[in-house]
């Protein structure tokens, strides 16, 4: 897919952990203001790819660009201004247990600023963000008192609670571990945030219902390479064997080999 003004660009990115190759010569351009969804089976390198975008992992080969600035070789300190424009919603939410919901949401802003005037501004922004995710009365609760869906929404509120708002939100398996109803709330929230804040989204998931609902563009990662790229309808109607097996939830014969011993016992 040709994109004229990409907000993020990965050029020939490769990554391996020891002898295990995870990403192989990945080229990816993310369109501004749209939600791009990367699908693929578990362990295929989706989360690894996402972590390259925010500099949590460095590629062995290749380049990563954020708004035409190369970021893969920057030091942790030089990456800070870039990271403050990108929010990351982690698969396990990564809420800080020792803090209240409001403190979690305000965390990035509190760490950046001090002073009484800012304190008031932070409090009002926290309230606004919690309202946006439907958790107005949860300010003083602790993460341990919340359900899985509520935790996810607090993670969303924390992701958007930046001043100025984030340009990109990265979602790592946003519906993992949620029941279908809660997953639907999360999907609608991703859509809502995109419309309200015009934020670019990158979603990594293996939940096809979620991918189709939130994605403007879908890519499929298979053994470290993209094997499909298009609008959701293109993928849903794809005849490619690997894509079809993934969509229909049918195991590949090579995956079944380890379950059925060859000697017939």
């Amino acid at each position, binding site marked *: 897919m040709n994109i004229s003004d990409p907000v993020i660009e990965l050029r020939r990115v490769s990554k391996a952990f020891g002898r295990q190759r995870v990403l192989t010569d990945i080229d990816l351009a993310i369109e501004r203001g749209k939600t791009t969804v990367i699908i693929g089976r578990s362990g295929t390198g989706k989360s690894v790819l996402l972590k390259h975008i925010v500099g949590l992992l460095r590629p062995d080969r290749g380049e990563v660009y954020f708004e035409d600035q190369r970021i893969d070789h920057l030091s*942790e300190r030089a990456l800070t201004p870039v*990271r403050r424009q990108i929010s990351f919603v982690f698969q396990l939410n990564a*809420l800080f247990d020792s803090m209240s919901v409001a403190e979690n949401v305000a965390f990035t802003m509190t*760490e950046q600023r001090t002073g009484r005037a800012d304190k008031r501004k932070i409090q009002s922004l926290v309230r606004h963000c919690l309202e946006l995710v439907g958790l107005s009365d949860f300010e003083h609760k602790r993460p341990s008192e919340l359900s899985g869906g509520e935790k996810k929404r607090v993670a969303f509120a924390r992701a958007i609670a930046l001043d100025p708002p984030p340009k990109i939100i990265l979602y790592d398996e946003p519906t993992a571990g949620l029941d279908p109803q809660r997953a639907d709330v999360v999907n609608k929230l991703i859509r809502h945030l995109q419309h309200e804040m015009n934020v670019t989204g990158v979603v990594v998931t293996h939940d096809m219902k979620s991918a189709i609902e939130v994605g403007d563009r879908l890519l499929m990662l298979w053994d470290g390479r993209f094997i499909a790229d298009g609008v959701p309808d293109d993928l849903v109607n794809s005849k490619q064997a690997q894509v079809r097996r993934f969509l229909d939830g049918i195991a590949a014969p090579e995956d079944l080999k380890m379950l059925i011993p060859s000697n017939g016992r």
Partner: protein
Amino acid sequence: MPRAKPMALAISRLGERALEMPALFGRFCIFSFWTMTFGPLELISRRGWRHLMPQCFSIGTLSVPVIMLTGAFVGMVLVVQSYSQFDTAGLADRIGVIVNISVASELGPVLAGIMLAGRVGGALAAELGTMNVTEQLLALRSMGCNPVRHLATPRFLACLLLAPILTLYADLLGALGAWAVYTLYYGGESEPYWFYTSQAVEYWDLGTGLVKALFFGGAIGLISCYKGFHCRAGAEGVGRACTEAFVISFIMILVLDFFLNLVINRLYEGIYGFRGLLL
């Protein structure tokens, strides 16, 4: 050669471990360097104190009862162990001298350090390890915060600064515990106990104990935070990090104690000569 295979495997594993050790030590040194480098910056900033104060409470204030109990019982046991020898020699009223010098310069800091390693070291490794496996450390990095500065430095500073204060509590309770057993159980008199103690126990003894405690506290903070930051995934990884944090801290306290004693003795000889032998 069927027999050579396990042997070759064992040698290969030994070689791997041998190569791994310097790398591990190097990683620990880099981690310690950054943790300590951020220390002064944290101490001069309001944000730093905001991070430090809760750690001072959980590491220092909550450790006071257990440290005081340890100090008191060490003093009491020392009196019970040595009273009969002192009494036989007719020197029972000087029992406070040996007990308090031992507590102030050696047993107070070492046992306070060990108690701190047990109570705090494991807890720090568990807390940071859990944050590590639940992606909270990654979350901090993704928000532009340095996890070492944000999490490790305040915990290291709290251990470093509060270990000497906790040792003072252990020393005080050690002296009081010994006095209580000497006067209440053995029927000794208070006045000679405190008189001879004040004559014999020098600021040097107290000071060396506090300097040792400073090193022990720093070592506990660094080792526990490092173990938490680098623990393996899962409950087993966190559990192992806790155990290793305590065991390594414990061993380091003993090793540091030995080398600090060598240095302190040299310093004493350099400053006071052989005054101790002449008097």
